[in-house]
């Protein structure tokens, strides 16, 4: 009974909110012609965001995997260092990390490719989150699997390769898809080092035309076009690698 009541309540709240928001947004008086001259800027900004996101996804998985390996290595020094890195990165604002990373650290080593530095900084940030997702996945594999793998005579490396990692991969898919979406949206913070990505272009368009909503509304479509396919792909992979029936 309370289940029906609860689900009805949630449905009604969601539906009314949705209808109301769509109505408000749709009935606003837009002047799309104001931003028309900037459409190429917006598109090139979107492409930059796509490029940065793709590169940072790959790099952040690699960083996340290395941080996880360091933490489960069983050696105290790398485990502690990785732990400190993860806690520090997750506990401080990305915005500040980007500012310090570009204007102080990258400057000190004479690297001024904004996009390159941006990709590395984003990956370093997102990698910390991935390492927590991966570590959780590895630790969720029951002890009995380790026991029987050891009884068979597998080495520790073989246990990870053949038994633990293949099972953990499926378990980390949903959380990883979420982290990918975060990564894509976080790339908008690269505006602080003047990377001409999607959000940056929307800001400039808005500033130049005073057509704020017209400039920012395309962001919804642009980011959703990137995050939604990832969500679909994750669901597809989850189904494909399902072995509990």
């Amino acid at each position: 009974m309370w289940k029906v009541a609860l689900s009805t309540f949630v449905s009604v709240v969601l539906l009314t909110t949705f209808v109301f928001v769509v109505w408000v947004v749709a009935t606003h008086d837009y002047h799309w012609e104001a931003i028309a001259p900037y459409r190429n800027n917006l598109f090139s900004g979107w492409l930059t965001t796509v490029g940065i996101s793709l590169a940072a996804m790959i790099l952040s998985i690699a960083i996340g995997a290395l941080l996880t390996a360091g933490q489960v290595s069983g050696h105290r020094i790398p485990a502690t260092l990785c732990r400190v890195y993860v806690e520090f990165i997750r506990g401080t604002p990305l915005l500040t990390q980007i500012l310090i990373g570009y204007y102080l650290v990258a400057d000190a080593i004479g690297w001024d490719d904004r996009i390159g530095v941006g990709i590395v900084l984003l990956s370093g940030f997102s990698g910390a989150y991935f390492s927590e997702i991966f570590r959780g996945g590895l630790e969720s594999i029951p002890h009995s699997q380790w026991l029987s793998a050891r009884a068979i005579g597998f080495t520790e490396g073989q246990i990870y390769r053949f038994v633990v990692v293949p099972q953990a991969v499926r378990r980390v898919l949903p959380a990883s898809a979420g982290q990918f979406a975060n990564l894509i949206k976080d790339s908008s913070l690269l505006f602080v080092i003047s990377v001409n990505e999607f959000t940056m272009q929307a800001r400039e368009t808005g500033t130049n035309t005073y057509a704020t909503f017209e400039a920012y509304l395309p962001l919804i479509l642009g980011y959703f076009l990137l995050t939604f396919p990832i969500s679909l792909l994750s669901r597809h992979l989850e189904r494909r690698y399902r072995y509990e029936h």
Partner: protein
Amino acid sequence: MSIEIQGLTKHYGATRAVDGIDLVLDDPVKVLALIGPSGGGKSTLLRLLGGLERPDAGSIRIDGTEVPHDEETLRVWRRRNGFLFQSFNLFPHLTALENIVLPLVEVHGWKRGEAGERARDVVARFGMSAHLEKHPAQLSGGQQQRIALARAMAHEPALLLLDEPTSALDPEMKAEVLDLIEELCQGGQRIILSTHEMGFARGSADAVVFLGGGKVVESGSATDLFDHPQSATVKTFLGKVMKW
């Protein structure tokens, strides 16, 4: 097989799982059953025998060879044996066939083709051929345990260690798995098992060891131990479990 255990001790924190076991068994013993109350040390002793745990003190010799102490040699020791757990412990992401093939290929260095053939042979012997391509979650408990047994037997282990192999099964499946183990006993396979199946221990084991409180309470031939138990602990225990 001959077994010589001296001063064997294994503690987990304050729990004395195995608390100074001394035991000598002679050559004619092919099948050894460990019985006794839960928490008496059966599982721990079995894991020490199989090289899955390292003792805090003491030593084990099987056929004159000491169970090693360092991880590297212990792995070689484990590879010679086969181990079966109460809770099946198949790898859920692999099919029944792959569960058997993977260790043959990666641990024992067989070629894939040979490993596949061997796996099919063993599985056929265990009456499970129809289920080769299924994942563990699609199999019943008894079927999973038979596949796990096939995995433990595929490389023809010198010694088969079974840790309460039927405790998690319902009666009908229990019988199926026990039949299979009995068949292995008849075939001359050397087996050490811990079990609560007194009928099975009595009928199939050459020697029985009663463990309680991490110590050997009594040991001897199945007939001696079941028909003429010496200690009060064993008498009480058998009285209780045989009652129903």
